C-alpha cells in the first residue's frame, strides 16, 4: 500500500476545490465565504505539506510517477505561500472591478493544484497533466475581467500561444518516449545516453515548451501583453507562482531525465539565460506601463535564475531557488505598491502616475525605493544576495562569460529601475492617492519590504533550508 500521507496536500486541496464549487453553486452570495475558506484551505495545505513531506528526503509513489523530495516540498510551500498572499491582497482590487466572485479563488486553487502536481511529477504524463490543469485555470484568470477588451485579448493570446507551446512540449515528450521506451523520469535517465539527432530534437522541443512557460527569451513574446492586459492581481499571480512550478519542472527535467545529456542542453540554457538577461534589461527601458515593465524585468530575472541552472551543480540549483524565492518577495512587494496607486476606484498603472510620489506618500515611496534598488541588485538589499549566490555558482564552474554578461546587464537594468526612482523622487508631484488600503495589503507590503531590507542580517537561514536540495 502506498503511503498516501505524502500526497495528502494534493488530496486535501482537491477536496477543498470540489467542496467550494458545490458551496458556491448552492449558497447565494457566497463569494466572501469562498474567499475565506479558500484561504484556509491553502493555509491548511501548507501546514500539511510541512508536516508530512518536509522531512522526507526522497520517496516515490504510484509506480514511481510521483516523487516527494526536499525540492518538491520546498517549492510547494513557496507556491502555496505565494498563492495565499495573492489571494489575500486581491480582494479589494476585485471588489472595485466587481469581480469578487466565487470563481476567482477556486481557479487559483485549481491552478495551485496543477502546479503541485507538476512539482511532484516524476513521469511525463503526470507532468503534462499538472501542466494542463494549471494552464487551463490560468487562461480563465487572464480573461477574468471579461468586460475589458485588453483582458480578453490577453487571455486569448495566452491561450493560443500556450497551447502551441504545450503542443511542442508534448511532441518532445513523445520523441523522448520513443527513444527511452518509458515515461518515467528515472528510467529515461538510465536509457538516454545516445547522441541521436532525433533525441536532441526531443530535448529541444521540451526545453522550448518549458522556456515558454517561464517566458525566457526568445519565447517571451506573450508575457508583456498578457501581463498588461490581465487584471493586476492576476498579473501578480502570473509573475510569481507559475514560475516557481515551471522552474521546478525545469530543474527536474534537466537533472533527472536529461542528466546524461548535459553537452546537448547546457549551451541552450546558457543561451536562454544570456538572451533573457540582456533582452529583459534593454527592452524594459522604453516601457511606460508599469505592468509591461514588470513583465520585461521578470524576463531578465528569469535569465539570472537560468544562469544558476546552467552550471550543472547543486550549488547552481540552490542559488536558482534562492533567487526565485527572493524574487517572489520583491515582486509581491512591488505589486502591493502598484495596488496602492488608487484614486476614487480607479487604479493607475503608468510610470508617469508615480511622478513625485515621495511628496505625498513618503512611506510608500520609501518602500518602492527599497524594492527597486533591490530589484536592481544593489547591496545590501536582498536582490543583491540573490544575484550574488547565482554568480558564485556560475563562477565556480569558471563560466566567466556568463557572469560578466549577467553583471553588465544588471547595469543596464539598473538604468530603468533608477528611472522609476527618479520619477518618484525627483519629479513634480501629482494628486494624492487614496490611503484607505486593506490591512492585508499594508501588512504584506511592510513585511516584504522589511524582509528585503534586513535580509543581509540573517542570510544563512535561507541557504540552510535550500541546501537540503541535492538533485545531482
Amino acid at each position: 500500500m502506498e503511503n498516501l500521507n505524502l500526497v495528502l496536500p494534493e488530496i486535501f486541496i482537491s477536496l477543498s476545490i470540489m467542496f467550494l464549487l458545490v458551496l458556491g453553486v448552492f449558497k447565494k452570495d457566497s463569494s466572501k465565504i469562498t474567499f475565506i475558506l479558500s484561504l484556509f484551505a491553502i493555509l491548511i495545505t501548507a501546514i500539511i505539506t510541512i508536516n508530512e513531506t518536509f522531512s522526507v528526503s526522497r520517496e516515490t509513489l504510484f509506480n514511481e510517477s510521483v516523487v516527494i523530495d526536499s525540492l518538491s516540498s520546498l517549492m510547494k510551500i513557496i507556491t502555496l505561500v505565494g498563492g495565499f498572499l495573492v489571494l489575500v491582497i486581491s480582494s479589494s482590487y476585485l471588489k472595485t472591478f466587481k469581480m469578487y466572485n466565487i470563481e476567482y479563488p477556486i481557479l487559483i486553487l485549481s491552478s495551485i493544484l496543477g502546479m503541485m502536481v507538476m512539482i511532484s511529477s516524476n513521469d511525463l504524463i503526470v507532468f503534462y497533466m499538472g501542466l494542463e490543469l494549471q494552464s487551463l485555470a490560468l487562461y480563465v484568470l487572464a480573461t477574468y475581467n471579461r468586460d475589458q477588451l485588453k483582458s480578453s485579448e490577453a487571455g486569448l493570446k495566452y491561450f493560443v500561444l500556450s497551447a502551441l507551446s504545450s503542443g511542442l512540449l508534448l511532441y518532445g515528450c513523445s520523441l523522448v518516449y520513443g527513444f527511452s521506451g518509458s515515461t518515467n523520469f528515472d528510467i529515461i535517465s538510465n536509457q538516454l545516453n545516445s547522441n541521436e539527432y532525433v533525441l536532441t530534437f526531443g530535448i529541444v522541443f521540451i526545453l522550448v515548451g518549458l522556456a515558454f512557460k517561464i517566458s525566457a527569451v526568445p519565447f517571451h513574446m506573450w508575457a508583456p501583453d498578457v501581463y498588461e492586459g490581465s487584471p493586476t492581481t492576476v498579473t501578480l499571480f502570473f509573475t510569481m507562482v507559475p514560475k516557481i512550478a515551471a522552474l521546478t519542472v525545469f530543474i527536474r527535467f534537466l537533472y533527472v531525465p536529461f542528466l546524461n545529456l548535459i553537452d546537448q542542453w547546457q549551451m541552450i540554457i546558457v543561451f536562454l539565460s544570456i538572451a533573457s538577461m540582456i533582452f529583459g534589461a534593454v527592452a524594459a527601458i522604453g516601457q511606460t506601463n508599469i505592468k509591461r515593465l514588470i513583465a520585461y524585468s521578470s524576463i531578465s530575472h528569469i535569465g539570472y535564475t537560468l544562469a544558476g541552472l546552467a552550471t550543472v551543480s547543486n550549488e547552481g540549483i540552490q542559488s536558482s531557488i534562492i533567487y526565485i524565492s527572493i524574487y517572489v518577495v520583491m515582486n509581491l512587494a512591488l505589486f502591493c505598491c502598484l495596488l496602492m496607486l488608487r484614486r476614487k476606484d480607479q487604479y493607475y498603472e503608468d510610470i508617469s502616475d508615480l511622478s513625485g510620489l515621495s511628496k505625498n506618500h513618503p512611506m510608500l515611496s520609501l518602500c518602492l525605493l527599497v524594492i527597486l534598488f533591490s530589484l536592481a541588485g544593489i547591496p545590501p538589499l536582498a536582490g543583491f544576495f540573490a544575484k550574488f549566490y547565482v554568480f558564485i555558482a556560475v563562477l565556480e564552474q569558471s563560466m566567466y562569460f556568463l557572469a560578466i554578461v549577467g553583471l553588465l546587464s544588471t547595469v543596464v537594468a539598473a538604468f530603468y529601475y533608477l528611472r522609476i526612482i527618479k520619477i518618484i523622487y525627483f519629479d513634480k508631484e501629482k494628486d494624492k492617492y487614496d490611503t484607505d488600503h486593506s490591512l492585508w495589503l499594508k501588512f504584506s507590503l511592510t513585511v516584504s519590504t522589511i524582509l528585503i531590507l534586513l535580509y543581509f542580517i540573517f542570510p544563512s537561514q535561507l541557504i540552510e533550508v535550500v541546501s537540503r536540495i541535492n538533485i545531482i
Partner: protein
Amino acid sequence: MNFPILSSLILLPIVGALFLFFTKDKEGNNLTAKYVALFTTVVNFLISIYLWISFDQSTSSFQFVEDRVWIEGFINYKVGVDGISILFIILTTFITPICIISVNNSVKNRLRDFLIAILIMESFMIGVFCALDLVVFYLFFEAGLIPMFLIIGIWGGARRVYSAFKFFLYTLLGSVLMLVAIISIYWITGTTDVVQLYEIGIDVKYQNLLWLAFFSSFAVKTPMWPVHTWLPDAHVEAPTAGSVLLAAILLKMAGYGFIRFSLGLFPIASEVFTPLIYTLSVIAIIFTSLIALMQEDMKKLIAYSSVAHMGFVTLGIFTLQQQGIEGSIIQMISHGLVSAALFLTVGVVYDRMHSRLISTYGGLVSVIPKYSILFMLFALASLGLPGTSGFIGEFLILMGAFKDNFLVAVIASIGVILGAAYMLWLYKRVVFGKLINEDLKKILDLNRSEYFILSCLAAPILFFGFYPDPLINTIEVSVTDLINMHDSNIASK
C-alpha cells in the same frame, strides 16, 4: 571579546538615522533633526578620536578586529583597522559633522531626509574603510551609491537628474567587474578574508586579470582619466554638503582600495601595470589641470582640480616606495580637508549670490575680508604651499616618483605649477580686482557657523602642514610592512 568599537562606529549613524526617521518632519529649518544628526556625528567623531588614541602605532597588524560568522562557512563579517585605514575613518567622522553644520542654507526642503541620507552615507563609508573581508568591503562600497544618488538627485541643481544617473551608472559599471573578481578570488583561494589572503597570496597567473577587474572599479571611483567625466557633473550639481562628502571621502575609497587591495593582494600585477597607472596619472595631472584653467564655473574648477590631485595620489601609490605611498595617504587626507573647505567656500558665496560663475564675482576682498583670508589659505593649501598639509603630500609623492622614474616625476612637477596657476588665477578673479557687480556690495561676510566650520578645517590643514608627524607615525609601520610584503613577494617570484 572587547567592546566592538568599529561596529559601533558603523552602527551609530544608522541609529541616528533611524531616530530621525521616526521623528516628525517639519517644514523649513528643522533644528531638532539637525541637532540629533549633529550629536550623533560628533559622538562618532569622539569615538574615532578615542580609537586613534588607543591605537598601537608600533605594529602593522590589524587592531580592534571583530570577526563574526555571517554566512555560514563562507563569509565572515570581519572589520579591523591598521595605520592606513584609521586615518580615513577619522577623516570621515570629522568631515560629516562639518557637512551637517553646513547644510543651513543649501538645503531648503526635506532637511530631515537629507540628514538621514548623510548619516547612512557616513556609516557605509566607515564600513568601507574598516572592512577586512572582500565581500563586506564590496557591500559597503556599493551601498554608498544609494544615498549619494538620492543626495544628488533630490537636492541637486538644475541638471541633477543627468548627473545622478551618470554618477550611479558609471560607478556601478566599474564595480560589477570587481564583484566577478571577488568571487573568483573566493574560488581560487577559498577565502575572501583579506588578512588570510595577504598570507597565502594569489597565484601569479590570475593576478593580472584580477588586478584589472579591481582597477576598473577603483579607476572610475578615483576617478582617473579617461573615466573621470562623471565627477565634474556630480560635483557641480550636488548640493554643497554632497560635494563635500564626494570630494572629501568618496574619492578616497578608491585610493584606499588601491593600497589595500591592488597593492596588497596583487603585488606582481601591480608591478606589471605600473606603467599604465603612471601614464594615466600623468595625463590626469596635466590634462585636467589644463581643463581646470579654462573653467568658468568655480565648482567645476575645483572638481577638475580634484581629478588632478587624485592623479598625484595614484602616481604616489604605484611608485611602490615608502615616501610615495605615505605621500599619497597624506595627500588624500589633505585633499579631503582642502577640497571640502574649497567646496564650502564656494557654497558660502553661492548661497548669497546663487551663482557659481567666476565672472559674477571679483573684488570680494573689499567687502568680505574674513572670507577672503580663509579662501586664500585653502587655495594655497590646494596648490601645495609649504606650511600647509598639501605640501607634505605632494612633496613626498614627488620624492617617491623621482626615486622610481625621473621622467614621470618631472612631468608631474609641471602639474604642480599648473595647479598653482589655476588656483591662483581663480583666487585672483574671484577675490581681487575691481568690484563691478553691484549686487556684491551687499554681500555679507561669514556668519558664525560658516566661520566655525571653515576654521575647523583650516586648523588641521595648518597643523599638519607644520607638524605632519602624527600622521606619518600612524601610517609608517603599516606602509613599511606593506612595502616589505610587496618586495618579498616580488623576490620570491
